């Protein structure tokens, strides 16, 4: 009876500590990023989640090792290779479907031969992978700090959704400056939730945020390798926006579904 009470008390204390850590993290991370974005910064703000996570760990006396900042290659090389291949697959496959499924919206230009497109994908993959550190700041914050704590509080599924929501709100200052705020917000939210499942599985499987950073950078950089060679009719693109968007999400849905199942079954 007493042991049960002690266990409940310690669980409540742990929950309170985790909530305090999350509040502290978000209070640093969100406003600072919004201010930087409103001041016109589009590059350095990506490091704010890492800085917020590090400060929170230092103040709440959590070991920095928990942020999984360093690579662990031994026994995990396959995950790093998977990260590169997954990033390229997510970026390229959906965009390659565009001229196939919507031939009136997009066509490949005259200079786009198979060899040129493949070489371009290789080039963007190499450049993107080398620059993984640009988005490592985000992944230290989200995958290293935020998601494990959300998962402790509310389970895997809700943690994935809430982390996706927070990641999207974090981009608020940038979204507000774009046209069609609601459209961009909705598409970013869906992408963040799907990508979150993939990034979280990869982080747990490799015990490091670096593969997640690699996937994130490649999904930002490699689409240009294919889209750069397409001639897109802007009017038809806008008219078919949601159809095109859901089509390009197909690879993400498949990979995210598999990663989510593996997360739930604890296969990592």
């Amino acid at each position, binding site marked *: 009876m007493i042991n049960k009470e002690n266990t409940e008390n310690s669980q409540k204390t742990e929950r309170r500590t985790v909530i305090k850590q999350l509040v502290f993290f978000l209070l640093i991370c969100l406003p600072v990023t919004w201010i930087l974005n409103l001041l*016109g*910064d*589009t*590059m*350095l703000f990506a490091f704010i989640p890492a800085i917020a996570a590090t400060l929170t760990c230092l103040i709440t006396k959590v070991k920095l090792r928990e942020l999984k900042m360093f690579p662990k290659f031994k026994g995990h090389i396959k995950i790093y290779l998977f990260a590169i291949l997954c990033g390229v697959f997510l970026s390229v496959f959906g965009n390659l479907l565009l001229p196939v499924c919507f031939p009136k919206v997009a066509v490949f230009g005259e*200079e786009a*031969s198979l*060899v*040129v497109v493949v*070489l*371009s994908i*290789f*080039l963007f993959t*190499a*450049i993107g992978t*080398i*620059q993984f*550190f*640009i988005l490592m700041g985000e992944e230290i914050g989200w995958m290293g700090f935020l998601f494990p704590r959300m998962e402790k509080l509310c389970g895997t599924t809700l943690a994935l959704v809430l982390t996706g929501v927070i990641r999207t709100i974090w981009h608020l200052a940038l979204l507000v400056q774009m046209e069609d705020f609601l459209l961009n917000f909705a598409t970013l939210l869906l992408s963040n939730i799907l990508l979150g499942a993939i990034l979280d599985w990869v982080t747990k499987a490799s015990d490091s945020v670096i593969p997640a950073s690699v996937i994130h950078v490649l999904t930002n950089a490699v689409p240009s390798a294919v889209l750069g060679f397409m001639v897109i009719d802007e009017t038809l693109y806008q008219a078919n926006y949601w159809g095109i968007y859901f089509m390009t999400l197909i690879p993400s849905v498949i990979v995210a579904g598999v990663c989510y199942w593996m997360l739930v079954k604890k296969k990592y």
Partner: protein
Amino acid sequence: MWGLLYKDFSVMKKDLLICGGSVLGISLLLFIPWESLLQASGVASEFLNAESMIYAITPMVVYICIFLVISGVQSGIFAHDERKVFSAYITSSPMGGNGQVLSKYYMTLLLSFGVVVWGFLCDSFCTLISGIKGSAASIYITMFFVQILLRAVEMPFIIRFGEKHGRTYKILLISAIAFVGIVYLLFGPLPESVSLDSFFEFIIRFSKNEAAVSTTMLGVAALFPYIVLLLYYGSYKISCKLYQKGVNNYDK
């Protein structure tokens, strides 16, 4: 292996600090307002191209200098470990000679990678200060792979023959290969279709074909990083085999 990296950083602390200071000093050239200086000296209107040339040349000169400084530090990572006693100790440890070699390859990679990170930070600060979006990523990423390629060629020689003689033997071998190649091209039994004239004709025809030139350049740019990384891995494997023989050249 991480322990060996920590040991290398500790032993080379002074070199790294001097290197860091030099890199910082050289990087300040990126933040000088060249446009204003040119205007103040009265050259701007006539040399508008020079102004844009300055913006193109400055990052190239800066990053070449930074990579040269880093090369100097990378060359020094072997010197303090060239002792028979230390080599015997590390070979008897669980990591063995392979772990020692791997730590050197990681250290070299980390130092070069540090320049890429530094380059990104310089780009970000330049954008923040000037408001002009620009990036020298093509320069420092290319230099990164070039430096890794040069280290991949050099390190097996240093591991086999020691730091003092390794570089000399490398230069001698490369010179010998180049000499034999040139002598063969000039005097050797070449097929009739292969001649200097036919070679230059091919170059002229090729350079007139814009599509072929751009595809070839794209191919070289795209495949170069992968070839370099494969060569670096191959160099590591060769160095592992040569490590024990190289130990015999060390001082006590």
